[in-house]
């Protein structure tokens, strides 16, 4: 075989590979279809005084107030929409009403639901900080948890809990009674309806349940009737992570906006990604990490579309507005 022939074969192989990569890029790396977001303001720094944080990990926005999980300080802090401190509640411990490591938050029917990762329960407070009740206990049985990371609340009060180390999402009645679960307890899986350390759940207005399937680097969606609907995140939505549009590197929080669009905190990529309910990628935004950790760990959306993002690395909350 002559040198020229070898070079031709190598050249053809390289061209084919490039063509395949280009096709794969077009197939699995979508272009932004929505307008971007602009940074408005931020508040917070490391510490334990009011307005300071030591590992913020969750956020919920409701009726002009921003509730933030301040994990290592074992408390919830409340701010107005401009970041002015209003109040704090919760103390460190495992007695009723106390907190271990509060993570993702949800608000429904004027109550705040806190996923307590260390105390293996969902703690429910009034919005003024009054302790109401706790749901669940440590274990792997029905209605029990091993490090709940987040909770979504349906319009009828039913709960959907991301049961992190049990590798499942539990559907519970408002009093904690077990209804059903997705995923096999304690077993990691990458196929539809299986989980790899789920971190959070959000329930849409139509009753659809969106799950942040953390280390599967994807979002899974289920119908109000429990049926699996769809999944997305990288090629085939099955634990292929990356920094591209529509791909994830650990999903740590999920929220549904007022228009039904879905916002997911893409932690190791330091950004929030926005999707249509069908999974179509719309846009992404965020702040690069300055320290050893990463930034976008939790997200929620106000009624006017303003997005509030917890920056874990910088111990602060960021406010983002849709670009005009």
């Amino acid at each position, binding site marked *: 075989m002559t040198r020229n022939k070898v070079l031709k074969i190598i050249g053809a192989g390289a061209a084919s590979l490039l063509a395949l990569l280009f096709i794969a890029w077009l197939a699995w790396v979508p272009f932004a279809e929505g307008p971007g977001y602009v940074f408005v303001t931020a508040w917070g720094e490391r510490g334990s005084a009011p307005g300071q944080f030591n590992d913020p990990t969750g956020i919920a926005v409701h009726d002009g107030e921003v509730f933030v999980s301040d994990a290592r300080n074992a408390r919830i802090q409340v701010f107005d929409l401009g970041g002015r401190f209003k109040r704090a509640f919760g103390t460190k411990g495992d007695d009723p009403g106390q907190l271990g490591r509060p993570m993702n938050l949800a608000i429904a029917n004027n109550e705040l639901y806190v996923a307590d990762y260390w105390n293996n329960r969902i703690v429910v407070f009034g919005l003024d900080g009054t302790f109401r009740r706790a749901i669940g206990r440590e274990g792997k049985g029905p209605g029990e948890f091993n*490090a709940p990371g987040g909770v979504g609340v349906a319009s009828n009060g039913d709960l959907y809990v991301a049961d992190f180390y049990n590798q499942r999402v539990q559907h519970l009645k408002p009093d904690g009674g077990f209804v059903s679960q997705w995923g096999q307890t304690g077993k990691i899986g990458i196929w539809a309806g299986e989980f790899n*350390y789920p971190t959070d759940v959000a329930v849409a207005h139509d009753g659809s349940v969106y799950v942040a399937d953390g280390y599967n680097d994807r979002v899974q969606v289920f119908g109000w009737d429990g049926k699996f609907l769809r999944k997305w995140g990288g090629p085939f939505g099955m634990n292929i992570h990356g920094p591209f549009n529509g791909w994830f590197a650990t999903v740590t929080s999920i929220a549904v906006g007022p228009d039904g669009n879905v916002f997911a905190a893409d932690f190791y990529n330091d950004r929030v990604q926005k999707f249509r309910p069908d999974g179509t990628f719309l846009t992404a935004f965020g702040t690069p990490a300055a320290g050893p950790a990463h930034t976008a760990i939790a997200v929620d959306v106000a009624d006017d579309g303003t997005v509030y993002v917890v920056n874990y690395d910088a111990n602060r909350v960021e406010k983002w507005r849709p670009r005009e």
Partner: protein
Amino acid sequence: MKRFLILPLLFFWSLAAFAAGTQYTLRVDGLACPYCAYGIEKKLKQIEGVEKIDVDLKKGIVIVDVAEGVALTESQMKQLFKDAGFTYRGMEKKPL
């Protein structure tokens, strides 16, 4: 009189010195995520005799202080880190 005061003080100091525990430095990957770091802390604090846990994200280490008479073993740590979703890399220890 002074001698009588010094002797008990020395006695209690020596008791404190001998009662000192051990500090373990555990090496682990992926500590940048709090879900992982808290999972490790949660499992470590369930071990009787563990007095203090510090996570150093930058160095990727977990520093654990244990009481006198308490020892962390390689096999115990391997299992604990496996349960927490990590690969155990190794540990060093020194007296407190």
